[in-house]
């Protein structure tokens, strides 16, 4: 599995336009954590780092003694309404879990990708990370922007720059399976 992963390094450029949903990649270089509060402040005060080619990680890590202890992804959909301005400023990728909405899928079209990291895998994540800096520390540990250097973090392309979205495919398949669902314990199932 690992041998096949495509290698990426930040800042990202047009190489990511070749990525297809479902591809496995390994990402190295600087990423910036940001959750709800950090997005709101960046919208108001401007982005405190160079956004061109940058990667945002939806994550509220556990940090101790300036080290990353645990740093798995948080639910990206919470930031659905807050991603557009970052893409407009040059951000090329988001890392998170659970995927993002149709609006973000369209905003990424021809410009960027959404990379999924396995939820709950905080120890695996931190073993690929070195802490480099912090912005907005007053927002608290979970909501601050932590500048983190990645070393080959294993990810999968969830949404590519051509509008392919494997979360959306799985969702549609689940909805269709549910329409055909009939409990076996049902005493009388009508013909469908």
């Amino acid at each position, binding site marked *: *599995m690992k041998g096949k992963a495509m290698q990426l390094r930040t800042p990202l450029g047009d190489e990511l336009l070749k990525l297809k949903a*479902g591809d*496995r990649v390994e990402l190295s270089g600087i990423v910036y954590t940001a959750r709800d509060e950090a997005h709101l402040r960046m919208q108001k005060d401007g982005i405190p780092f160079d956004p061109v080619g940058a990667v945002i990680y939806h*994550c*509220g*890590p*556990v940090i*101790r003694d300036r080290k990353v*202890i*645990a*740093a*798995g992804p*948080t*639910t990206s*959909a919470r930031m659905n309404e807050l991603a557009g301005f970052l893409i407009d400023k040059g951000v090329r990728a988001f890392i998170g*879990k*659970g*995927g993002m909405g149709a609006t973000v899928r369209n905003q990424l079209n021809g410009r960027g990708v959404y990379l*999924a*990291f*396995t*939820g*709950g*895998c*905080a*120890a*695996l*994540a*931190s*073993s690929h990370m070195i802490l480099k800096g912090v912005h907005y520390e007053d927002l*608290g*540990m*979970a909501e601050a922007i932590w500048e983190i250097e990645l070393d080959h973090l*294993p990810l*999968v392309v*969830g949404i590519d720059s051509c509008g392919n979205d*494997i*979360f959306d*495919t*799985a*969702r549609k*398949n*689940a*909805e269709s*399976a*549910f329409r055909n*669902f009939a*409990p*076996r*314990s*049902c*005493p009388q199932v009508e013909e469908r």
Partner: protein
Amino acid sequence: MKKPAQDPLFSALADATFEAYKSAVISLPSDVLRVIRKAAAAETNPVARGEFANILENIEIAERLGVPMCQDTGVPVVYLTLPPDVPLTQSLYDAVAEGVRRATSEIPLRPNVVDPLTRHNTKDNTGAGIPAIHVRPGEKFTVTVFPKGAGAENSSRIAMLLPSHVYGIEGFVVETMLSAEGKPCPPVFLGIGIGGTFDLAANLAKEALLLSVDTMTEFEQQICDSVNKLGIGPMGLGGDFTALAVKVKTAGCHTASLPVAVNVQCWANRHASVEVNP
């Protein structure tokens, strides 16, 4: 609040709570690990196989480095069993809270507990009614810590079904996962509480997650198979395993009621029990 360290019962329970918390957030129970490994070997979807590989590597790294496997170290749900010679006193509740505070600063845990309305963070994972402590009589004095993360807890649901719709239980569980999609970090464990009252059904659902997942009854297996037909897969990326196990607990209920609660638990079904030795 804090009792002097010379109270042996207080310090033994605080120590045991700390130890159980530490063990729970760092290493998974062996039955949970077996079920994850079995599913990882059986999964056929290539993206899902990659997710399972990450999960297994993460479990191994957390154990080796002694760090929490997930940064959402949850809110503390605690079960105590008290033998006849240990009286239930406020001091026991205070001792568990002391163990939680120590676990928060020393492991460390992410401070997750806030006031529900002001959202003020207490910074030590305690708060009004938290840790949630459930007490039962038992032969041994034990403490079980079950840290509950928000992603999965937020996908949980309860319904008061019609008593004539026993067959609707399975559909309610499947529908719960349909609307949850990847949010609870599947593959999940599902604790189902059936019967009792509105509150008891929810308690049963949570307790069901503490049952051994090595085996399932025919009813549990049937619900599990139906959930897996959704194909949501690990993290909602698609795959054979949306649920790893379904566990059911029941209680008697009113003849006019059929409460059903579904407590969703991510793959990291973390819990640990420690015997308290004063």
